[in-house]
Structure formats: C-alpha cells, structure tokens
C-alpha cells in the first residue's frame, strides 16, 4: 500500500496535478462571483459547472491532439502538421457528408468519425513513410506537409466554411442528462482517449517499443525492434488523434474550414512538453499531455476570469510554459536525488558477494 502511494506521489504527473489544482484554487479564490441569470443565486465566476465544463471542452481538442503529439515526441520525433491534419480531416468529413446527402443520424455520425479518423491516419502514414523513406528529419517533413495538407484543404473547399449536419452537433453537444447548456461529450472523449493512450503507452508491446526507440535508438536497433514500423506507427497515431479532435471540433462548432486550427501545433507541442514529454525522446505520457493542455487552457482562462488585459495573453502563456517545464525538470532532479539518497544506505548495508 505504502509502495503504491509512494509510486503515485513520485509520478511525474502528480506534480502537474498539484499545479493544476493550485491554479484552479487561485482562480476560484480571486474570480469573484455573479448572480445567476435564472436562479438569482450567487455563483463563483470560475467554480461553477458551466465554466468548469467549458474549460475542459476548450482543453479537450488540444489535449486529444497532444496525446498523439506526445507519442511522436516520446519516439524522439516531432509533428508540426497536426493543425493541418485537423483542418484537412474536418473539411474532408464535411465534403463527404455533403456529397452523401440525407442519411440517418447514426450513419452520419459514424461516417463522419470514420472519415476524420481515416484521413488523419492516412496523413500520419504519409508523414511516417516520408520520414522513413527519405531519411529526412521529421521536423522538415512535417513542416512541409503542414503547408501541403492545409493547401489541399484550401483548394478542396475554395476557402469556404462548410456547415456540418446538425445531427453531428447534436451528438457532440448532447447534454447526457445534465442541465441545459452543459456539454460534457468533448470532455468525456478527452478522458477516454487519455485512458486509451495511457494503456497503449504503458501496457502494450508497441508502447514499450516507442519508449525504447526514443530512449536509445542504437539499443533498439541491436534489440531487433522494427524501427521503421515504429516510426510510421507513431505518426499514424498522431494523425489519428488529430482526426478525432477534428471530428469533435467540427461537430461541436458546427462548421469547418481550411483555416481551422492554424497555429494549434505549437499549443499541442507545448501541452505535451509541459506534460513532461522530453524533446530528446524516451519520456512522456498521455496523462501528462492532457494535464499540460488543461494547464495551458487554465492559464488562458485565468487571464479572462481575472480580467487581466487580454493583450498580455501570449506573454503570460509563454512565460508559464517555460516556468512549468523548469519546475518539472527541477522536480524530476529532486526526486532522482532523493531516490539516490534513499538507495545509498540500502546499498551500503547489502553484503558484497
């Protein structure tokens, strides 16, 4: 029991959870309150069900993409094209659904999800194949495909915003029994994909291979791991998560365009890195990526809730990212130091053979 607790407290994500909780506490204490329009009761400007679910919804699109980005970063790569994959997946879905005309609500949702996920995976496979086949650094390949994929989306849509069928919006804005105006579906999807991502990375052979690949490429090669397949696979996962995020985003907001998610790749990579993923590879987690996205969205939220000047948003986010990563590294070093210190007496008392 104590061992499990120690493991939990020593986990990299625990520190991030504490930071998220502290930011939430700070926001709650400083946000003030307002009278609810319907009931007339005083509600805290941050700690109310609407703002909390809205914050989680805002984070969910980044977080889902950040999980895929974390997988690529753990492998030692980077994917700059996730924003463009998001845009292309979204517009592909809208065009496919438009061409299909009237079909049932269930079929619409299923076809939309399959199209988004399929286009996402396809784009990821292309990224992976180019990285492996051309032996060019992922930064360059995905920088190129970032423009190419957005260009395809632009040409395909002729720069128009395309509405998605209302039945899709009904799915992602389902209240699931909550009072009107509360939409928990994106948040639940984020939690589900975080769970799947965690299981994938920590409980499957492929997941362990990715850590090995990113942690020590040479050792992985000597161990006979299928390196090309791993590298293509991580980009496919990144594309898949971007496709799923696009499905949720386009459905939730009711439309899609080639200009969607511009610049989101930087938020997504920042979320993964704030969540503990090392750009050198071999370290990171799905939960960390989700928490990183949540923290960034909370910081954005704090600027609005505390009525700071909006013009300072980028400065605050940039500083927060640097501070979060420095604290994380400092915490990691401290934990490693304590573990070493704790191990020393045990080693000293172990009889030599």
């Amino acid at each position, binding site marked *: 029991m104590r061992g499990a607790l120690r493991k939990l407290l020593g986990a990299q994500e625990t520190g991030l959870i504490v930071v998220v909780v502290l930011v939430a506490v700070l926001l*709650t*204490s400083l946000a003030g309150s*307002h*009278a609810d329009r319907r009931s007339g009761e*005083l509600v805290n*400007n941050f700690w109310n069900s609407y703002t909390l679910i809205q914050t989680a919804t805002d984070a969910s699109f980044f977080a889902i993409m950040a999980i895929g980005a974390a997988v690529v970063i753990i492998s030692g790569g980077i994917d700059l094209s996730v924003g463009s994959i998001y845009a292309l997946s979204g517009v592909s879905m809208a065009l496919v659904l438009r061409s299909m005309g009237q079909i049932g609500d269930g079929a619409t949702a299923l076809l939309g999800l399959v199209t988004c996920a399929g286009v996402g995976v396809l784009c990821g496979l292309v990224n992976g194949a180019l990285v492996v086949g051309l032996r060019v650094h992922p930064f360059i390949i995905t920088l190129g495909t970032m423009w190419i994929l957005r260009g395809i989306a632009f040409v395909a849509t002729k720069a128009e915003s395309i*509405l998605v069928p209302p039945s899709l919006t009904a799915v992602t804005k389902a209240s699931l029994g909550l009072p009107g*105006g509360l939409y928990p579906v994106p948040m639940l999807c984020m939690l589900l994909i975080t769970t799947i991502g965690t299981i994938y990375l920590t409980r499957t052979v492929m997941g362990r291979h990715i850590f090995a690949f990113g942690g020590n490429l040479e050792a992985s090669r000597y161990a006979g791991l299928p390196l090309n397949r791993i590298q293509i696979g991580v980009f496919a996962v990144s594309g898949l998560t971007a496709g799923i995020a696009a499905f949720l985003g386009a459905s*939730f907001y009711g439309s899609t365009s080639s200009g969607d998610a511009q610049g989101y790749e930087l938020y997504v990579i920042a979320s993964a890195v704030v969540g503990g993923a090392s750009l050198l590879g071999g370290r990171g987690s799905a939960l960390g990526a989700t928490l990183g996205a949540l923290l960034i969205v909370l910081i954005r939220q704090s600027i609005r809730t505390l009525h700071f000047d*909006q013009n300072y948003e980028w400065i605050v986010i940039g500083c927060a990212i640097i501070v979060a990563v420095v604290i994380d590294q400092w915490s990691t070093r401290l934990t490693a130091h304590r573990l070493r210190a704790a191990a020393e007496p045990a080693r000293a008392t172990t009889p030599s053979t």
Partner: protein
Amino acid sequence: MQNFISWKRLGLGAIATFSLACGKGREGAAQNDRITIAMIAKSSSNPVFLAARTGAEAAAKAMSDSAKVPVEVVWLTPPQEDGQVQAQRIAQAVNDGADAILISCSDASKVTGAINDAVARGVAVMTFDSDAPQSQRFAYFGVDDIQTGRSTMAELATLMGGKGKVAILAGNQNAPNLQRRVQGAREEAAKYPGIQVVGTFNHIETPQDAAAGVVRVNNAYPDIGGWAMIGGWPLFTQTLLTDLDPKRIKVVAVDALPAELAYVDKGIAPVLLAQPVYDWGYVGVKTIVDKLHFKKDVPTIIPMELLRVTRESLGTWARKLRDWGFTDVPEAYLKRQ
C-alpha cells in the same frame, strides 16, 4: 517518507485554500445593478478594433450617466483571428455573467452555435462589422459588404477614366465579409467595358505581407493602372509611398487610418472609403443599452455609411481620428482646415 509528507502538506494547503476560496465566492457581491457587455472583436492586433473599443468605452461612460446604471465593457477579443476561440469566449462571457455580447465574427458559421447558446441562456447578442445572419443575434451594425466592394471599384474606375487594368487586393481568403466585398468589386467592374480585372490577390493580413504582395503583383503585371483594395492593409506601411508612382497607379482602399493618410496627401490613394470604426463600439453599446435598459425596439440591421476621405477632407478626418483615440495621427494633418 519525507517526500510523502511534503506532498501531504501541499495537498492540505491546497484544500484549505480551496475552502477559503469557495467561501469568498459565496460572499462575493452580486452585480445585478450594472450592465456588463462582453466585446469580442476579430483580433486585438488590428487597430480598427482598438478604435471600436475606445468607442465602446466612451458609449459605456455616456450611457452610465443617461441610464443611471453603470455600464461596463469587458474586452474579450482574441489576439489573432480564430472563429473557434471566439466561440469559446462567447461561452466564457455567458459563464461570467455578462448581460450582452457585442461581436465581430471571424467565421460566422463557427460562432453561430455559441451565439444561439448564449441567447438561450438569456444573454443578448449583437454583431458589428462582420455578421452572423443565421444566428439569433438581435441586431447587426456595419457596412453592406457587397456595396462596399462596388463603391471601391466605382471610385477607382472614375479615377482611371473608365479604362485600364486593375487588380483587387483581398486579404484573407477565408473571411466571408471580404469575399462579399470582392464579389461587389467584380460585379461593379463588369459595368465598365474599359476596365479589365487582372486578378484578385489574397495575402496574410499583415501590412508587410500585403505590401510585399502588391509589389509582387506590380512586377508581374507592369501595366496595372489601379488597385481596388477592399482593406487598407498595405497602406499601413510607408514602403508603397516610394514604390508606387501616383502618375501611373491609382489606389482606392477601404479604411482610412492615420498611417494611410500620407497616401491620400501624395495622390497615390486619392480616395479612401473610411468606415467610422469608432462607431462600431459606440453605436453597438448604445444599441444594447437601448434594448436592455430602455426596452426600446431596435432595428435588426443598422446600416453604417462609408465616409469618403480625400485630400480636401484630410484635416477634418485627422482630427476625428485623434478624437477616437488614435495617438499616431500626423501633426501636419491635424493643423489643416
């Protein structure tokens, strides 16, 4: 163990702070005795929206006096254009207890759902500059974009004597209001048999990118005689003052901000069609207070008229810009009659 204790302390501290926070939340003052208007423009890096903000704040002050109730404007404009972020900010404004929202839509289809959700939760929404006509907003204040495109091209055609090659500078290809202005400009050009449109040129909406785009097109089409700019982006730089020859090329552009006035003075842009951008905020806030507080009926569409700025009206226009909060109006123009 030491590690465990420190985490435990941290956790307890967090819970304690949280309890205090919740307590404060319950004790906070109600804000029913004021009108809070969330203003969400397209981008806070665009100076026209800063003038709109100045107008909104001035109207809030004036209406606070006349309505005998404090009117507050909360600026929730994203740093750069993003319809999805605007939708998130609409939801945020509603959650924060705003009474009304005044928005210029970057992507109408992206924010329509959020506007309807806000209206469903009892928050009045008004649009300005760029409308969301399919939404349940109660009013829109702005120019007729197709007519704006038509007027721009008509002015240019007149300056060019009804003949010559012209180009259309069109900004962001995704913006529906700009697409409509281009449509209007092309429809108007079709009325002049001697006017040939060589193309519509989109660009990233920064002054430098726009100016570079103009130079590139001029090099590719050396016989261009006029530019119909449906936004004034490249004229925010000084570079075209030397790169464009007023004897050879005429420009008509929408908007007339301080940096653009030199182009009027030099004769490169003999006519600028100015949107009274300050009024976006002023009229917007006044209309909202009229509806919410004075319970007046307001029209669904409130048309904004373009103002024609020429060398003759430079002084008057410059002083108006200064009064609207622009701090970079050249002194030379302020002194003119």
